C-alpha cells in the first residue's frame, strides 16, 4: 500500500499554485508544509473542521479551486458536511481524504486506535450516498494521479478517498517552518486579498456610527 508521503509528493508536483489547500491538523499539515511551500495553504484545521472550512472557502470564492486535504478521523467528526456539500454543490471543491484507518495522532512506531474506516465503513460510498456523484477510492500512486488530474480539470464537487499505509513509515525532513495558526491566517488572508481583490483583514478599525 502507498504511503501518505508518496501521495503528498505526487500532489505537490501536480497542483497549480493558485489552488487553495486547506489541510487537517497532524501529519497532513506537517508533511504538506514541508513538501509544498506556497501562499495558498491554510493549515491546522482541527478534527471535524477541515472539509467544512474548505467548503466555506469554496462557497465564498467560486472562481477558485479549493482542495480539502482531510483525513479519515478528522472527517468522521463532522461527517454531516458531506450532505451539506452535496446539497450546496460547490463545483470548485475537491475533498481528498488520506484514509489511514486509525487515529494516528503523534504515534510513530505503531498505528493508533482504529477509526470507523478501519472496520466496515467505506467513505467513498458514504460520499456517494450523501449525493456527491464524483466519489472514488484509490490505493496507489497511479490511480491517485489520474483522479487528482480529473478533479483539477473538471467541475465537482469531487471526493477522493486515498487509502494509505496505517503508519507514516516515510516522513519528510523538518527544515521548513510550518506557520502557526495566527501567522498562517495573516499570510493566507493577505494572499487571498491580493489575488482575489476581496477585503478580509480590512484596515484594523471598525466603522461605528
Amino acid at each position, binding site marked *: 500500500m502507498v504511503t501518505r508521503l508518496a501521495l503528498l509528493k505526487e500532489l505537490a508536483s501536480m497542483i497549480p499554485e493558485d489552488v487553495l489547500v486547506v489541510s487537517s491538523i497532524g501529519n497532513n499539515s506537517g508533511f504538506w508544509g514541508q513538501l509544498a511551500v506556497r501562499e495558498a495553504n491554510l493549515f491546522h484545521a482541527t478534527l471535524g473542521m477541515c472539509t467544512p472550512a474548505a*467548503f466555506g472557502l469554496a462557497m465564498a470564492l467560486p472562481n477558485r479551486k479549493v482542495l480539502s486535504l482531510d483525513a479519515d478521523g478528522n472527517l468522521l*467528526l463532522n461527517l454531516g458536511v458531506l450532505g451539506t456539500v452535496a446539497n450546496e454543490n460547490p463545483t470548485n471543491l475537491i475533498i481528498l481524504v488520506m484514509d489511514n484507518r486509525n487515529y494516528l495522532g503523534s504515534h510513530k512506531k505503531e498505528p493508533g486506535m482504529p477509526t470507523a474506516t478501519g472496520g466496515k465503513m467505506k467513505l467513498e460510498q458514504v460520499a456517494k450516498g450523501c449525493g456527491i456523484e464524483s466519489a472514488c477510492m484509490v490505493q496507489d500512486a497511479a490511480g491517485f494521479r489520474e483522479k487528482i488530474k480529473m478533479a483539477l480539470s473538471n467541475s465537482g464537487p469531487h471526493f477522493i478517498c486515498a487509502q494509505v499505509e496505517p503508519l507514516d513509515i516515510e516522513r519528510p525532513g523538518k527544515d521548513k517552518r510550518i506557520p502557526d495558526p495566527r501567522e498562517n491566517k495573516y499570510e493566507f488572508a493577505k494572499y487571498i486579498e491580493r489575488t482575489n481583490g476581496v477585503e478580509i483583514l480590512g484596515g484594523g478599525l471598525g466603522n461605528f456610527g
Partner: protein
Amino acid sequence: MKLEKAKLVVQGLKAAGVDFTAGVPDAQFIEVYKMLAADPQMRYVGTANEAEAVGVGFGAWFGGKKPALILATSGLLVATYHLARVNILHEVPLLVVIPYRGDIGDPRWMGLYKKTTEPGLDAMDVPYRVVSRSEDIVRTIKECNESARAWLRCIAVVLNEEALW
C-alpha cells in the same frame, strides 16, 4: 417569536454588513432562519451541526465574506470545541447570534442554558452582549460585528426573550 422581532435581527445583520450565515434551525428563532434562507444577500448555509457551521463560517471569512453564525443555546454547546479553537487559536472573527433560552422572559424552564451560555462564552473568551430590549437589537448586532472584525475575535449577541417576544 414575533415576526417583527425576527425582522429586527435580520435588519441588524444587514446593518452589520453580514453577507454569509450558517447554522442549524431551532424553534425559537425559526422565523430568522426562514428569512435568511430566503434572502440571497445573506447566503444561508444549513449545516448538520453547529460545529460544522463554525468551520464553514471560518472558511467563508478567508474568502472575504462577513459571516455570522445563528446558533441556539444548545447549539452553542455543540459548537464549543471549534468556536474556542477559531477564537483563541486562529483569532478569526465570527459573529455569533444566539436566542437566549433559559434567561428572563423564557416561558419554558430551560435553566440549563442559563448555566451554560454565558459561562461557556466566558470560557471560550468570546465577548458578548445580552440584549433585553428589542430597540437595541439592530444597533447591538452591528456594533458587535464591527468590534469582531476590528479585533479579529469572535463576539456573540445573546438575545433574550424580553427582546424577542
